[in-house]
C-alpha cells in the first residue's frame, strides 16, 4: 500500500575474525591463486565452501554475523531492532547505512540515509562547538546552508549557548553528548538510522531526544530504523519490531508482542548475572557492575516463582567516584509491556570508592502473575544520573491461588493482599431505611 523505501532480500554477512599476522600474506596469495586457477571446480581436500565462503561453523575465527535477513520498511514507518549483544543488529544497520556491504543478498534503499551509529562522529577536540556543529553536520550529509538555517535551533536544543565558541575538548562529557545529539536531531534525511544513541545523557535530555524522534517520524513522515535496549522507548516509538538472534530474524511484528516474546525467551538469562571481567562489565567510569541477582524465597521444593514468593534483589557494584557525595540507588520494576510498576530508592548514603552491596525485597503476595523486569539506577547528589542498568533482571511470576477462589484471570499488574473486609450491618427494615434516606434529603 504505502511505498516501500527499504527492501532487504536474503542478506548475509560473513566476517573473518582475528588472525592478523604473518599468515595473512600467504593466505591472501593462496586465495588469489585458488580463485585464479581453480574457478569452477571444487578442489579436492579443501574445506567446504558455500558461495565462495566457508559454511557456518567450520572455524571459530569465521562468523556469519547475519544470515538470510529479509524485511521491508515503508515510507514513514518506524522499525525497531531488538537482540542481545552480538545478535547482528549493528551489522545490519551498517549494511543499511552503506558502511559495509552484505556478503550475499541485496538491499535497496530509496532516499537519503543518515546514520547515527554513535553521536558526535568526527568531532574534533581542538575545534570549537560552532565548528564541530558544521563538521558533524557535513559528515552526516547535511549541506552548509541547511546547517546555517538550523544553527540557532541546534544551539538552542543543546542548551550550551555560552560554550559554543569553546573547543569541545574542554567540554564535560554531558555537554559533548548534548551538542552531538542536537546536531543529529536536526538531520532531515528520508531514512534515519539510530543505534542505541539514547543510552547517553541525563534522563531529561533523553526524554527531549525521544520527543524529537517521535516528532521526526510522525509529523515529518521520515522512516526511522532504531536499535535500543530501552523497551519502553521501542514500544512507544515503533510501529513494528524485529528480533534478531545469532544473525537471524526470530520474530517480526507488532512491538508489544514481539518485545514480550523477546523478554520471555531471554528470562533464564536474567535471573542472575555475574560479571567477572571488570573491563567488560556493564557500567562506565563511575559505576562498574559486579553482580545482580534475583533470589526468590521459594515456598516449596518446586522452585517456581508464584504470586506468594518474596523476591530479593541483590546487587554488587564498584563505586569509582573518589570524592565523597551522596549516592542513591533506585530500583525500577516494569511489567513486560513496559509499564512501570514502581520506582523505589535507597536513602542518601555517602560512600568513598569501593565495592558496594545492596538489596531490595519485594514481598510476597504483591505482584500479579506475569512477566516483569528490573532496572537499577545510580544517582549522585540527587540530580546526576551516573548509570542506568537497564533490564538487568527479568522474571516470570506464576499464578497461585487457594482452591475455591476466583478462577478467571486477575487483572492488574499487582495483586496485593490488601484486606477487603466484609461485615454484616445492623439488621434494619428496608422500608425504614428508605424512609430515613428520603427524610434526610
Amino acid at each position: 500500500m504505502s511505498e516501500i523505501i527499504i527492501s532487504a532480500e536474503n542478506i548475509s554477512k560473513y566476517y573473518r575474525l582475528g588472525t592478523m599476522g604473518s599468515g595473512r600474506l600467504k593466505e591472501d596469495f593462496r586465495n588469489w591463486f585458488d580463485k585464479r586457477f581453480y574457478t569452477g571446480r571444487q578442489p579436492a581436500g579443501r574445506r567446504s565452501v558455500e558461495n565462495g565462503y566457508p559454511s557456518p561453523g567450520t572455524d571459530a575465527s569465521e562468523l556469519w554475523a547475519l544470515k538470510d535477513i529479509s524485511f521491508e520498511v515503508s515510507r514513514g514507518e518506524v522499525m525497531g531492532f531488538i537482540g542481545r549483544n552480538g545478535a547482528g543488529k549493528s551489522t545490519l544497520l551498517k549494511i543499511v547505512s552503506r558502511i559495509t556491504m552484505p556478503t550475499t543478498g541485496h538491499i535497496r534503499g530509496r532516499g537519503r540515509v543518515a546514520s547515527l551509529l554513535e553521536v558526535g562522529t568526527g568531532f574534533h577536540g581542538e575545534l570549537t562547538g560552532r565548528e564541530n556543529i558544521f563538521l558533524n553536520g557535513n559528515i552526516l550529509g547535511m549541506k552548509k546552508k541547511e546547517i546555517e538555517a538550523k544553527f540557532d535551533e541546534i544551539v538552542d536544543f543543546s542548551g550550551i549557548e555560552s560554550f559554543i565558541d569553546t573547543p569541545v575538548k574542554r567540554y564535560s562529557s554531558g555537554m559533548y553528548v548534548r551538542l552531538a545529539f542536537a546536531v543529529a536531531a536536526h538531520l532531515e534525511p528520508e531514512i534515519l538510522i539510530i543505534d542505541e544513541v539514547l543510552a547517553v545523557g541525563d534522563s531529561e535530555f533523553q526524554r527531549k531526544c525521544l520527543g524529537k524522534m517521535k516528532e521526526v517520524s510522525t509529523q515529518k513522515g521520515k522512516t526511522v530504523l532504531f536499535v535500543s535496549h530501552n523497551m519502553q522507548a521501542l514500544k512507544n516509538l515503533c510501529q513494528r519490531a524485529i528480533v534478531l538472534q545469532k544473525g537471524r530474524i526470530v520474530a517480526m511484528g507488532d512491538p508489544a508482542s514481539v518485545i514480550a516474546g523477546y523478554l520471555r525467551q531471554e528470562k533464564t538469562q536474567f535471573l542472575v548475572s555475574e560479571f567477572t571481567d571488570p573491563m567488560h562489565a556493564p557500567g562506565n567510569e563511575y559505576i562498574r557492575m559486579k553482580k545482580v541477582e534475583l533470589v526468590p524465597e521459594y515456598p516449596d521444593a518446586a522452585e517456581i516463582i508464584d504470586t506468594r514468593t518474596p523476591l530479593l534483589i541483590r546487587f554488587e557494584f564498584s563505586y569509582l567516584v573518589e570524592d565523597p557525595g551522596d549516592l542513591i540507588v533506585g530500583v525500577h520494576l516494569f511489567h513486560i509491556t513496559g509499564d512501570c510498576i514502581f520506582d523505589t530508592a535507597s536513602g542518601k548514603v555517602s560512600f568513598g570508592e569501593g565495592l558496594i552491596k545492596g538489596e531490595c525485597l519485594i514481598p510476597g503476595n504483591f505482584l500479579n502473575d506475569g512477566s516483569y523486569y528490573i532496572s537499577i539506577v545510580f544517582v549522585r547528589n540527587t540530580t546526576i544520573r551516573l548509570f542506568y542498568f537497564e533490564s538487568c533482571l527479568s522474571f516470570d511470576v506464576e499464578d497461585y491461588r487457594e482452591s475455591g477462589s476466583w478462577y478467571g484471570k486477575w487483572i492488574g499488574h499487582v495483586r496485593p493482599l490488601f484486606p477487603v473486609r466484609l461485615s454484616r450491618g445492623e439488621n434494619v427494615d428496608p422500608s425504614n431505611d428508605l424512609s430515613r434516606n428520603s427524610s434526610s434529603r
Partner: protein
Amino acid sequence: MNLSELWHYKDLLLRFVRRDLIANYQQTILGPIWIFLQPLLTTFVYYLVFGKIAKVKTDGISPLLFYLPGVIIWTFFSECLNGTMYTFLSNTHIFNKVYFPRLIVPLSIVVSQSVRFGIQLLLFFAVFVFHLFAYHDVNPSILPMLLLLPLLVCVTAAFGLGSGLLISVFTARYRDLDYALQFLLRLFMYAAPIVYPVSMVPEKYRFLCWLNPLTPVIETFRSVFFTGKPVEVQYLLISVASVSLLLLAGMVLFKKREVQVMDII
C-alpha cells in the same frame, strides 16, 4: 564513479580542509608561520650540508633559489602521499559509523596541502622577485612560466594522490607497509633532483632520473624561473602521462575496495 554524489558532499570536503588547517596550528605559538618556516629552515640546512660541505653544484643558480622550489615541491608531494596513504587507517572511527564517498577524505587532504603549497609559493615569489630586482641573477621566461606552473602543480598533486590511493588499500591490510613506506619515501627524495641538478647525474643514468615524474616538474620549474633553458618537453609529457595513469589506477582500485577494506581493518 559517482560524480553527482561527490558534488553533493563538496561542503564536507571544504569542511575537512578547514578542519585540517585550523586544528593543525591550535596551541602552537607560531601558528601558521610554520608554513613559511619549514621550507626556509630545510633550505638553509640543504644549503649548509649540500652546498657548503658537500659542494654540490647548483647549475649556476643562487643556492637559496636553487633549493627552495625543490623543497616546496617535494614537501607538497610527500605530504599529499603521506596524508592519503593512511586514509582507511586514520579514519576508521568515522568510516565505521557514517557513510559518505570515501574519496572525499583523500581529496580534502590534497586540497588542504595545495593551500599550504600556495602559501609557500608566495614565499618563493617574494624571494624570487627580490633576486630579480636586487641581484639580476635570474632569467625567467614569463609566458611558459604562467602556462606551465598550473600543470606542474597538478602533476605533483596527482602523483601524490594517485600513489596514495593505491597504497591506502594495502596499508589497511598489511600494517608492516608503514615502516617500509616511510623508509622508501626518504630514499625516494634523493631520486628526485632536489639537492642536485639533473646535469650532475652521469649521462648513462640520466634517462632513468628523468622517468621519475618529479624530475621534469622540478627541472621545468628551474628552467622557466631561473635559467631560461628550453623545457624538456618529451619528459614532461611522459611524466603527465604516467601520473595520469597512476591516478586513474589509484581511483579505480580505491573505489573498488573502499567498502571491503573496512571489514578487515
